[in-house]
């Protein structure tokens, strides 16, 4: 019976940072805000006019063309020489809620991520070195004519789940949907590309004319939500038959908050793939129930095992832990235009107080690696030659004394809904005592924390996932950034100009030089205290084969690239 109060104008939920971590328990959880690219490299394009060949995946295969590419992915599954077998049902557990959605080009939570990757393929992807690759994606070549003009050629013979071929109309529709201001799926891309910026050269080659020069356009193509959908595609609204994509599995049923069932796509462009017959993605209330389900064999794989449970899972001979290094980071932020942090010496002092190794032990239970106050660690332009900052209490106290801030007392805030932040401020407060600094660690309720005061506080915390350096700068380190947490850059700095230069620079070497300068400035004077990068920690049953522990942006080895390489042994 229809309800005449039913919402007609239901607006798509805008991305809220809090939503992304609701319900994910103690494991590190955090997810890109929409609009930011979820990746860590600058594009590996050559100087203008040359096309990018596909860089190779871990299996060492050459640039991929239609169809054949996927078999190289099959190669990586046979790590111990066992032969992959077809068939079977994989049950994957993760934390979800009745707010789950299915949209080939949009996600809010990790549950949505998993479902998106299962049914849709991105335009380009990253390999394990975070260079652009075409191994798991729909494009086969990108030609960079200029920083604002790109020609993308897609693989031949691509089909959707219903057998319909992928055409230029579908590709153009997909991009127009991505930048549609009403849907607001990718604000970052919408600033670069206008609805008339795409021209079909032939049925599988499209020219993109950007509104402004930006080499970060290619990074936006590598987002796992930049997928190709059929013309007139819309978000799941109750009818599974509308959820058509190009991915390895097709949607058979979906009950938000409970489970979704995906069946093998017989028309998948990766020949011989996927290996499984069916994938069930099952929602759990919290990470504890999820871990229990894995331990008692109710599910075959689970994402975000709480750090405290990792040892238990490892000691179970039927289970395996899958740990990937990524570039996700937690941060203590200092507003550079508010006392006492408007004095750069106080900022430097705080960074010298931190004992980063201890933080990795106490906050992450060892599941991470020390950071150097700079983000974008997986970006090829990351300046690894900058010396690692170590704890130096003496120097910190000297700087504070110079700035007239010895025996400083200050409040530091964290939310209660993000794994690791409450622990981080407690540990930092401990460490600060040695320097005579009294830090009042205050944990606020999540709703309050991310409310009006967020990005206005003097001394606070935050979380970010892996991004290329320039994308992260746009997200948090410019005056008009989406989340300007530290109110960077300082007024007399040319950081913003360098950013404009960098995104228009198509030569990798030149761009890396500019980025190195920008990173150096943030390293010296910035308001971010970044102590570590934390790992993604997942678990699976021993008979689930095909996952590899390698640097990744998403859990479970990028969800097995839509589970296509995953098979069940025995």
């Amino acid at each position, binding site marked *: 019976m229809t309800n005449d109060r039913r*919402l007609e104008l*239901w607006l798509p939920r805008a991305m809220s940072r809090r939503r992304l971590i609701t319900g994910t328990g103690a494991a590190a959880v955090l997810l890109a805000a929409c609009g930011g690219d979820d990746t860590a490299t600058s594009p590996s394009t050559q100087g203008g006019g040359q096309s990018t060949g596909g860089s190779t995946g871990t299996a060492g295969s050459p640039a991929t063309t239609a169809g054949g590419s996927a078999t190289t992915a099959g190669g990586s599954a046979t790590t111990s020489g066992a032969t992959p077998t077809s068939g079977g049902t994989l049950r994957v557990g993760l934390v979800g*809620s009745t707010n789950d959605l299915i949209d080939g080009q949009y996600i809010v939570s990790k549950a949505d991520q998993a479902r998106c990757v299962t049914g849709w393929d991105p335009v380009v992807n990253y390999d394990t070195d975070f260079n652009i690759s075409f191994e798991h994606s729909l494009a086969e070549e990108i030609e960079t004519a200029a920083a604002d003009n790109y020609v993308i050629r897609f693989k031949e013979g691509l089909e959707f789940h219903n057998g319909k071929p992928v055409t230029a109309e579908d590709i153009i529709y997909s991009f127009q949907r991505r930048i549609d201001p009403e849907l607001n799926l990718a604000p970052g891309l919408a600033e670069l590309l206008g609805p008339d910026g795409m021209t079909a050269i032939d049925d599988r080659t499209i020219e993109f004319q950007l509104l402004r020069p930006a080499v970060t356009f290619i990074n936006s193509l590598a987002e796992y939500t930049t997928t190709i959908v059929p013309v007139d595609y819309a978000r799941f609204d109750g009818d599974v038959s509308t959820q058509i994509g190009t991915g390895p599995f097709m949607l058979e049923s979906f009950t938000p908050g409970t489970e979704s069932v995906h069946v093998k796509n017989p028309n998948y462009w990766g020949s011989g793939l996927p290996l499984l017959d069916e994938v069930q993605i099952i929602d*759990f209330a919290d990470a504890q129930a999820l871990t229990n389900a894995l331990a008692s064999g109710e599910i075959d794989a689970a994402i975000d095992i709480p750090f405290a449970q990792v040892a238990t899972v490892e000691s179970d001979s039927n289970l395996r832990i899958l740990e990937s290094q990524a570039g996700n980071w937690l941060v203590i932020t200092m507003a550079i235009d508010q006392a006492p942090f408007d004095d750069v010496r106080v900022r430097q002092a705080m960074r010298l107080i931190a004992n980063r190794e201890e933080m990795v032990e106490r906050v992450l239970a060892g599941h991470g690696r020390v950071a150097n106050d700079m983000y974008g660690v997986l970006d090829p332009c990351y300046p690894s030659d900058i010396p690692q900052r170590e704890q130096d209490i003496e120097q910190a106290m000297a700087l504070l004394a110079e700035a007239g801030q010895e025996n400083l007392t200050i409040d530091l805030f964290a939310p209660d809904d993000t794994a690791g932040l409450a622990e981080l401020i407690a540990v930092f407060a401990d460490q600060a005592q040695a320097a005579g600094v009294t830090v009042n660690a205050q944990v606020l309720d999540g709703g309050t924390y991310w409310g009006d005061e967020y990005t206005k506080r003097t001394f606070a915390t935050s979380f970010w996932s892996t991004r290329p350096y320039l994308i992260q700068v746009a997200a948090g380190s410019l005056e008009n950034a989406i989340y300007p947490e530290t109110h960077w850059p300082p007024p007399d700095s040319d950081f913003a100009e360098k950013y404009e230069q960098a995104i228009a620079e198509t030569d990798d070497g030149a761009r890396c030089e500019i980025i190195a300068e920008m990173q150096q400035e943030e390293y010296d004077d910035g308001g971010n205290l970044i102590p570590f990068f934390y790992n993604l920690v997942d678990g699976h049953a021993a008979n689930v084969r095909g996952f590899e522990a390698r640097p990744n942006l998403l859990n479970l080895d990028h969800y097995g690239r839509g589970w296509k390489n995953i098979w069940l042994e025995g």
Partner: protein
Amino acid sequence: MGIAKFIVKRVLLGVLTLVVVSIVVFALTQALGDPVEAILGREAQPASVAAMREQLGLNRPVITQYTDWLTGLVSGDPGVSFTNGVPVLEVLGDRIWNSLFLMLLSALVSIPIAIAVGTYAAARRDKAFDSTSSATSLVLASMPEFVTGLLLIVLLATNVWQVFPAVVRIRPGEAPWVDLGALVLPVLTLTLGVVPYVSRVMRASMIEVLESDYIEMARLKGLPERTVVWRHALPNAIGPTLQVIAINIAYLAGGVIVVENIFNYPGIGLALRDAVTDVNVPVVQFIAMLIAGIYVVVNLLADVGTILVTPRLRTRLR
């Protein structure tokens, strides 16, 4: 007729209680937070925010919102979910039945056990069974449900033995009894939460009854002790216990929420948790009223049951 009038009075009182509860629930959910901000996020355009407030009916005066909601509730239409516009009953659908089934099953298991334990302890007063069950009851009563639940999981599902599943998986469209083995641990958790209280009260009531004259008479007549206890004492001891039984059954309605979270049981407990986080007011209100309704109904049944079981009170009604 005394009883009929009594029942009618009690029902009216129950309805009045529910009305008062509805006012309190409505007032409290207004304090949950701003649903529009929860749905659209912090950076929503003022135009979108205004449009959504209009759609959700938040611009109407509070009294109108309340009366509209109440009339809808009574006529079987508790509104639509704020987050996706789907009618609340459709959103909760199977979950309501799943939760009710779990409650019912737990009640059917725990109450007879509690009565039996209390009776036996009273009959063998101060002996081994009595002291052991007293001590155990005390320990169980002091443990919060989630502790009991997690201990059972560690003991029987994941660590020590692996006899039962650690989670309950009911797939959409399946009946909740499709996998009774999976229900053992949740029901056991709830049972261990209820038995201590009911058995203690049963024991106390039974002790008192066993000391009364007519029991003495029955024993003097030579009836076997078993008959004395189960046929003569028990029906009289149950009366006072019915109120406690009612409270505990109603408590199950709330206890189910904790258990659902631990065992990932697809019921209204999980839906409530999500709804609160999302400030999904209609869903929260409906679940609150549902649980209140269960309380009122169960208490009503207990009152009526007490009357029926206690002839003295029946005569007083005339």
